[in-house]
């Protein structure tokens, strides 16, 4: 008996086979391989653009969003089939986007009809690149103490202040931003606004990271005019939107724990190349072999947990604080993976600029992972949330 789902699988397989360019079935190797979309698409290779556009026009960059907002209108089961079929041909993610993983879900829940119609289809097609203006120099873990102000000027807000750690702010077209609209109330004085990064008064300054890259910025707002229609949710109730969005951000970041669970294990390949095998054909460093094997147990178990989490989420059965657990576990796991990768690679991986090391690719990636347990809320903050909201431990 063939079910509708079987038919869908067959059609999906055929479509992906026909539309996914061969170059998009290679693993992501450098930062350049990841497609972010945006107004400026001059950096995209023809294959990247073709793949993003093909998926975007079907709404398959956001398969489970409603069709009227540029989504694919797929059911949870169909979305899962699509993911499985993409994985089967090792298709790359067509589009990385804070719009998809963060702002979109928040707009779907809190946006007005006009906001959804205006912003969501652009997100789905990768036409606008978004950045997140949450953190400030004195508001990190204690985000609700943020000070960037938005003054009511009748038809618009006048925004002044500074954000920090704004990922890709210098490349983004628009920002979703938390601003203070009431100084007398900590949590209930925050609003959630959207604005164009080309608005006069917005400026950015890159921050150099320990990896030698600087995809992060300090972002400054000097009398920035934000139209009132760009307020998402109610005035002073932006904290609800912010928290909802953070849940989705954590969910996205937790996916990092999944790296390398499919295909040839990069840890093993690295170690085989540097250390080789003993007379039994086993990795010649038994302790490293054991560490890798035990790591793989956790990584594979976490892959199952990720699948379970997504299934529960789609079925509306996940605890609302569960993304904190996923974020915590996934990011700690990813850091452990990179420690092992560096260990397996030995001195080869320490070269910072050489051609052989691909410009220090592994070392820089290793350093980058150290931010996984900081960005989007630190591991300590996630553990606080699990303890309080899931285990209901006393304050």
């Amino acid at each position: 008996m063939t079910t509708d789902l079987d038919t869908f699988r067959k059609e999906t397989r055929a479509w992906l086979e026909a539309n996914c360019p061969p170059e998009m079935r290679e693993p992501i190797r450098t930062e350049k391989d990841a497609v972010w979309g945006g107004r400026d698409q001059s950096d995209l290779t023809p294959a990247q653009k073709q793949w993003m556009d093909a998926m975007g026009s079907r709404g398959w960059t956001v398969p489970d969003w409603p069709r009227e907002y540029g989504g694919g209108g797929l059911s949870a089961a169909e979305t899962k089939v699509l993911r499985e079929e993409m994985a089967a041909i090792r298709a790359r993610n067509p589009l990385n986007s804070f719009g998809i993983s963060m702002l979109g879900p928040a707009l779907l829940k809190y946006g007005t009809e006009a906001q959804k119609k205006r912003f969501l289809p652009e997100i789905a097609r990768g036409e606008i690149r978004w950045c997140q203006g949450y953190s400030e120099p004195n508001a990190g873990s204690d985000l609700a103490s943020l000070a960037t102000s938005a003054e009511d000027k009748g038809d618009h807000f006048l925004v002044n202040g500074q954000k920090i750690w704004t990922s890709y702010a210098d490349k983004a077209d628009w920002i979703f931003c938390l601003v203070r609209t009431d100084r007398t109330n900590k949590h209930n004085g925050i609003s959630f606004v959207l604005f164009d990064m080309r608005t006069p008064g917005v400026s950015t300054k890159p921050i150099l990271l320990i990896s030698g890259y600087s995809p992060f910025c300090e972002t400054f707002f000097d009398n920035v005019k934000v139209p009132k229609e760009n307020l998402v949710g109610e005035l002073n109730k932006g904290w609800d939107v912010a928290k909802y969005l953070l849940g989705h951000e954590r969910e996205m970041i937790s996916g990092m724990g999944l790296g390398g669970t499919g295909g040839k294990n990069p840890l093993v390949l690295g170690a085989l190349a540097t250390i080789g095998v003993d007379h039994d054909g086993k990795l010649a460093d038994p302790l490293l072999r054991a560490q890798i094997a035990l790591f793989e147990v956790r990584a594979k178990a976490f892959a199952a947990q990720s699948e379970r989490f997504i299934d529960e989420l789609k079925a509306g059965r996940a605890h609302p604080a569960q993304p904190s657990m996923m974020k915590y576990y996934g990011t700690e796991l990813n850091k452990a993976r990179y420690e092992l990768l560096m260990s397996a690679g030995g001195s080869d991986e320490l070269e910072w600029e050489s051609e052989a090391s691909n410009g220090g690719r592994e070392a820089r990636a290793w350093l980058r992972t150290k931010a996984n347990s900081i960005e989007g809320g630190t591991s300590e903050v996630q553990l606080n949330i699990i303890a309080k909201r899931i285990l209901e431990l006393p304050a």
Partner: protein
Amino acid sequence: MPLFLNDEQTMLRDTAKDFVAASAPVSHMRALRDANDATGFSRDLWKQFAEMGFTGILIGEDAGGLGLGHVEAGVVLEEIGRNLSPSPFLSTAVAAVEALKGTAQAERWFPGILAGETVAALAIDEGAKHRSTVEMKAERAGNGFRLTGKKQFVTHGHVADLLIVAARTAGSAADEQGVTLFAVPKDAAGLTATPERLADASLAARIAFDGVEVDADAVIGEVDAGRDPLNRLLRAGRTGAAAEMLGVGGGAMDMTVSYLKERKQFGTLIGSFQALQHRAAHLYSEMEVARAAVLKAQQLLDAGDDRAMQAVSVAKAMTGLATTLSVQEGVQMHGGMGMTDAFDIGFYMKRGRVLAEMFGDSNFHADLLATTAGY
């Protein structure tokens, strides 16, 4: 198939939860231990398991069972684990049933298992660490075989009606082929089972086979091709032990979290200390990941998927890690109370250790994963 229990499975879980908690809570185990009970479990309770239909979960409907899968068996096992209920369920209704399934032996033993009258034990380990090597000999004799050798860590071995025995009919210890699986009735001459009490108060036998003669029809499956039924048994046993461990780890965690909410020191509930909150939250995360690994293995087994073997090793290894953490944190966070025999948390530590060792510990399964992956 989504990675959570469907409605029927949830119903079964609720039934099992209520039933096990009511008929065999931790106090039941404590009472058996205090009485130095020589059987190690309650035959009455085993009958009740049968009346509930539990013993037939993995037996096909054509043979009078429920024709369900490893997810359902696991649901019962988790409750057994949570309540530390001594029960032959894992060895009999899960591992032995899987070994016998589809062989000529099924007809002979399934009715007794369905009725809650037959208890099976697994004589597969020959050393103190679970290994896939089989050294014990089975030589052809008359119209059957003569079994010589030793097995240990045979849970319920001294009272079982049926022993499933792995022996070598050809080749040498580490060979894949040449292993034969036998169904040996308990009264076979030359068989001595010496029960030993384990740390968790359960009983496991050391068994000596001194030229034990069995008929040719005691062979489960084919001569020399016993790896097939043995692998079925192991897959089921490992997955089942993981599910039971999940119950042990989860039960210990629940006790600990409750204790954090009621014990006061420095004039405040100890659960308000961030140092303990973070450890509890970390433990919760490990248990969640272990739960997913177990369900994944069960579903893949039920679907007859090729990836099941790997998933089973992941499940056994992961629950070993998570449950070990859970019982250790459990004792520690109970403070001095955790060290007393009067308090139940220590029982969880002991049971967790036994299950961690059963069918291969975390290291064994991590090594198996590595070897299978070619490193």
